[in-house]
């Protein structure tokens, strides 16, 4: 799913209003806003500044932004406004429309330089170099990092709620206290992962009185008017089911639901894993079985036809090799090294060297094998993971 600029605008505006930000300007294509302290802390990544504010009690200066949802429309709107302004007051030199926002405290720098700066600093995340006095312009469209950040902030901000259904006006006048049933609502995200991945959302609710479980809890909630305030004449029923039991119940319910799904994807993943492991195992077992580890093709093995060309002459690639103590291949290499370094007195020394080297190589090979195997399992093994996006207590009539 994606979000249209319109949807993005609605989303961001809701977020800003929920956090009591001061909206200075809005249009279908953009919004100019002065952030509230809470929003500032969430979005601008200035932990040291806020720490300072808290310690010294200095007045907090929050930042302002112009979030643009539809860059093309916004650009057109700006140009239209400029054109009008130019007509109205022909003596004023029109602004270079590109980089300067609607209200901008920045000095009139040379446009080309500022463009370069914009491009240059575009790589780094928006640092508040410009301070609270200026208004930063940002494009917020689906996929942009700012939007993902707002998503995250919204998720965190609303992760745990405790809400009460507000009565319709009629009922408020009734004298009898209304009974509220406590519900636990949790939105679960289920991830089906192997070397590929799929996700599902399940919003479940369970009554802490009766233990009844409802799926698509969100739809039930949408019809009601919820608020964090306790209403008058409210009588909250005591919960019969404890929270942890309720949670467990939801988990079993979800598990049952998941059981009904098709797991052929997991079977296929397992097959892929098995196939790959097979290839891997065959290879390494054969390699480790031999006495001399097959790190290099020597002229000795009968099947090494290729070696005829590459190993009779002093191997050209050897020139490039730097000292690798660990995985130095056997065979021609050791002989050459032996010749080059110290004239070997006895033959047995060379043999010992070879044997030692062989052991080291085997260990290295084994380690390689194990690592690769673990990696593969990590990559392919199918698994299902369930996390809770948000949860809350809902007191409903």
């Amino acid at each position, binding site marked *: *799913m*994606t979000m249209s600029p319109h949807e993005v605008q609605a*989303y961001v505006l*809701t*977020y800003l209003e*929920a956090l009591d930000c001061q909206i200075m300007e809005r249009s279908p294509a953009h919004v100019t806003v002065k952030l509230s302290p809470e929003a500032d802390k969430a979005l601008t990544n200035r932990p040291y500044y806020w720490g300072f504010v808290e310690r010294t009690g200095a007045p907090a200066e929050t930042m302002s932004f112009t979030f643009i949802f539809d860059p093309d429309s916004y650009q057109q709107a700006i140009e239209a406004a400029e054109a009008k302004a130019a007509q109205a007051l022909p003596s004023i030199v029109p602004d270079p429309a590109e980089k300067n926002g609607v209200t901008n405290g920045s000095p009139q720098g040379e446009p*080309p330089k500022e*463009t370069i700066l914009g491009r*240059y600093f*575009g*790589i780094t*995340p928006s640092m508040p170099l410009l301070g609270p006095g200026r208004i930063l312009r940002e494009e917020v469209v*689906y*996929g942009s*990092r700012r939007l993902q950040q707002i*998503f995250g902030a919204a998720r965190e*901000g609303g*992760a745990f*709620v*405790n809400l009460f259904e507000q009565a319709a006006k009629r009922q408020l006048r009734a004298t009898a206290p209304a009974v509220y049933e406590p519900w*636990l609502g949790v939105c679960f995200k289920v*991830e*089906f992962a192997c070397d*590929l*991945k*799929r996700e599902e959302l399940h919003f479940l609710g369970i009554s802490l009185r009766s233990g*009844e479980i409802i799926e698509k809890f969100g739809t039930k909630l949408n019809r009601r008017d*919820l608020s964090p305030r306790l209403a008058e004449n409210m009588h909250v029923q005591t919960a019969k*089911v404890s*929270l*942890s*039991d309720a*949670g*467990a*119940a939801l988990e*079993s319910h979800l598990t*049952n639901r998941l*059981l009904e799904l098709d797991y052929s994807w997991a079977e296929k993943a397992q097959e*892929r894993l098995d196939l790959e492991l097979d*290839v*891997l195992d065959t*290879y*390494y077992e*054969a390699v480790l079985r031999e006495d001399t580890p097959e790190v290099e*093709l020597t002229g000795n*093995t009968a099947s090494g036809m*290729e070696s005829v*060309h590459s190993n009779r002459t002093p191997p050209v690639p050897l020139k490039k*090799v*730097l000292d*690798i103590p660990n995985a130095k291949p056997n065979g021609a290499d050791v002989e050459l090294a032996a010749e080059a370094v110290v004239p070997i007195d006895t033959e047995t020394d060379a043999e010992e060297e070879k044997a030692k080297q062989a052991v080291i190589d085997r260990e290295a090979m084994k380690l390689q094998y194990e690592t690769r195997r673990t*990696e593969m399992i990590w*990559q392919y093994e199918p*698994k299902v*993971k*369930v996390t*809770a996006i*948000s*949860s*809350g207590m809902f007191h409903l009539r």
Partner: protein
Amino acid sequence: MNRKNPHHMNQTVAELPVPLEFDRSWINQLESRLDKGGPWGDYRLFQLGIQAEETNLIPNFDEIQCLKHLQGLTPLPHQMDTARRVLFEMSGRAILADEVGLGKTIEAGLILKEYMVRGLVSKVLILVPASLVLQWVRELNSKFGIPAIAQKKAYSWQNEVVVASMDTAKRDPHKDMLLNTDYDMIIIDEAHKLKNKKTTNYQFMLKLRKKYCLLLTATPVQNDMSELFNLINLLKPGQLGRQGDFAANFVVDKRVPKNQEQLKNELSKVMIRNRRGEGPVQFTKRNVSNVNLQLSPEEQALYDGVTSFVKDQYQEAGGNLSSMLSLVTLQREVCSSRDAVFVTLVNLSKKLPLDSPLRDKIWELVAHIKAIKENTKAEKTMELIRNMNEKVIIFTEYRATQEYLLNYFRNNGLTAVPYRGGMNRGKKDWMMDLFRGRVQAMIATEAGGEGINLQFCHHMINFDLPWNPMRVEQRIGRVHRLGQQNDVNIFNLSTTGTIEEHILNLLHEKINMFEMVIGGLDVILERLEKKESIEKSLYKIMLESQNDEDIRRKMDSLGQSLNSIQREVADEGPAVSGLLDLRKGGS
């Protein structure tokens, strides 16, 4: 259902066929808030949070999701195709072996982005040649919104997505840190440098722990089959069997494969190679013009003076080439600019003992230099640029020439910026930005030959030519690549009656390099250079020839050697490089 026994905490339901894990941290958090009476979130945020999750949800296993997150990027069909295959058929471990200029970086970016969007990859290591680090960082950030950083200090490695040079990575103290990290994905650019399994680079790569891995190279096989084997062994050991089996099954001789269909089949499981000219991917044309200029009498005098100077020294040195190398460049520098010659002569004289007779000869030459008032090539360049009236990149071998041209252009009202190897990354980036912006010309030395993209520019002037054809090809590749909208105009400036003319002749006429397919050239050169580098051969020709006729003859024979190697490669064509033709009947 568990309604009946609400206190029963264990799972009584049957197990799923796969491991199931529940994250239960929310329960404690909720409980503590209930106990303390807060802090509670806003209901609107609660709904927004769920809405966010819904929009980001990945509903199915095998559809590319990342495109909706990428504004303003329209990948080409072959790039999307490659991404799909790597993601859904090759499980994220593959060699991307597209021919030069087809956008391997984009393909890698798509694959990486897709994995990141799905939450399968968060820790990424990208190893590229040092000159390309910044470019990768820029592309990943701007085109894909991936927060990549260039590795600078030790703490840089902590970042989730790090781009670094392979040389830095394999050195201490970084090496141990990297070997101890579990990477979700590793991407290697110019992976053909890993073709030799005895190098430290290869061993290092082998030991790095990774889930997904991409190897990018335009030339997976340059010389022999074992190179291919080594590369594939990095990704999926055992895919092609053990080396012995591989040799037995698939190799007749270093370069001649057998059982090709089967081999191609195996290869297509781990490698993707797109070729230019295949499919709708069209490259624009190359228009090459050789501009022959006559040196002015003063310049000619300098050239003659230098030539005889150098030849005398060669005779005196008894024909020993290695002692001559600095002198030999003098002749080339004359064809470039007097500044270049001057700098070399000055350096030379500094090293000489005070009473050396060479000094007099040098001062003679300096006198010639002083006599030169104009630079023929520079004037012609100005003329060309004024005619084209568009952005142009000018390549030169010599820094002194670069400085001279900068000044010359400025005096003539032409905006220009330099680009050279000595600049740090930041400055290089800055120069590129200026060139992209309001500056009309960029003058680059060899560092400009590597890696940077200049698709927005389609005029190129070779002020002087490097003697290695590969370098010329690399220069051209900066401009003539995918993304280039216009035909590319290449102007080679050469001076008649000089060594430059002969070189150009060799490159253009004999080996027709400007028309040649990439990948063909470096194979040919590697083979030629088994005995000695092409530059050395050329130097020898220059120094040992008695006269022009001699030079021509020797150049001819060099040209013929190149031609015969070219034919050799063409004959093997269906063999090794044909292997890489994975689309035609192989996969």
